[in-house]
């Protein structure tokens, strides 16, 4: 689990985007660990959300993930 979390954070830091789809995150993890199931990646992402390292971004119809502190803040 820790390795998946590390891969997610590395991707989140490297990507130039302030927010990204779950699928992009999944692809990035699969580059490092090809056999990890989507369900595990979701669990790892949820842990990162609960630790306050990742954030959800929702338009109402679609949800994306982002690195806490980058891009928008809660007030905008």
């Amino acid at each position, binding site marked *: 689990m820790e390795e998946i979390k590390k891969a997610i954070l590395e991707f989140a830091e490297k990507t130039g985007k302030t927010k990204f*789809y*779950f*699928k992009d995150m999944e692809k990035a993890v699969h580059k490092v660990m090809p056999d990890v199931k*989507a369900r595990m*990646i*979701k669990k790892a*992402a*949820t842990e990162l*959300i*609960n630790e306050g390292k990742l*954030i*959800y*971004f*929702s*338009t*109402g*119809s*679609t*949800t994306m993930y*982002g690195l806490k502190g980058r891009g*928008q*803040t*809660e*007030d*905008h």
Partner: protein
Amino acid sequence: MFEPKEPQKKLKYEELRIYTDEELNNYTEEELKEFKCKHPIPDVEDLEKGPWPSFVADAKREALHRRKLPDDRLLIGKYVVEDTLGQLQLSFDHGETHWKHGGIVGVFGYGGGVIGRYSDVPEKFPDIAHFHTLRVNQPASKFYDTEYLRTLCDLWEFRGSGMFNFHGSTGDIIFLGTTTEQLEPVFYELTHVLQQDLGGSGSNLRTPSCCVGKARCEWSCIDTQDMCYELTHYYQDELHRPAFPYKFKFKFDGCPNCCVASIARADMSFIGTWKDDIRIDQEAVQAYINGEIPPNGGAFKGRDWGKFDIYKEVINLCPTKCMWMEDGKLMIDNKECTRCMHCINVMPQALRPGKDTGVSILFGAKAPILEGAQMSVLTIPFMKCEPPYDNIKEIVEKTWDWWMEEGKNRERLGELIQRYGLPKFLEVLELPPMPQIVKEPRSNPYIFWKEEDVPGGWQRDIKDYRSRHKR
């Protein structure tokens, strides 16, 4: 027998209320007539004209009510309703919206249920600078009592705008407009005091919804409320923590009348059905023919439609022509019946669905604004449907695994099925093609076979074929 998953308590408004009766009834009809919104809203007020009820009239009542409440009895802006109306007028003037949608607001641990909304002209309308929406998961079949409703209203008056949608198109109770600071307190009250959860939004499983089902309807072939409750609880993670390519909706209809329109609106539609024969009470059929029982449960009694004619109103309208009269008795060739429900709707005392009941599962509906509705496709004609619904959960999970793997970002299940074709989807579900899933089995029975599906396979030289048949 239905068993709740946690002990249920009866809400008592008198114990939970925030406002006194005087505070709730704090203006007169005369004051309402004299009420002037703080912004001029001529075009918005135009919507009050005509015979239909208007949200503007309701919003003005709420605006006056809030204006007369003491400041310390409201935790967000007093003029939130008036600013909403003012901004709507500005949007009419400019011909474009002044809302900004989306953001990172939410409640801790949830990726859905809250939709961020902000005014892009907050200097003009400061009380709606933040105007976030909350989706509250409605009770199954939208059954609730006034104690529950009044408790919700007090909570939202105190911590939000006091404005709701009952109900949003997915079925949720929509709380319209509050500030970021109020989200967690509202969520706490809803979950810890009212035993109420938020609904789904974003790339989540959306709030499942169902018809009134067996609770009030004699036609319901499945217990839609129980199924909705079970799957809502079982798939909590999918409801609150988004990892899908896009939205996903379940809807449960007890019979093919489809009162929650699952066939038009759900990625996965569950429609109650039966596989034995329609039950016929021949005496009641005669009573309808003799005019002793009004057809359609008396729904059209207000006008004289003439004597009931079973040929004109039932037999000739059967889409598969599977009904006829023989020696004064109504006959049905049940294997031709497509479960359209028309005859049962017209003569409910004479005809009833069969007893061997289950569910038909259809996939892929969506209702886009630009392209028009896409109906879901019948994929599983009949499946038994009993708690704990393990057979159905298995189908759900196979579908999700495929969609999560192959679906593009923002691609609905129906679009994915169209992109890959229905045969591929059947392969994913490990189901054989069946005549019931072919739209016109009599005129177009064509099925593509794969070599491995046919005993002995076949040999085909494409070069030889092309030498005789140019492309």
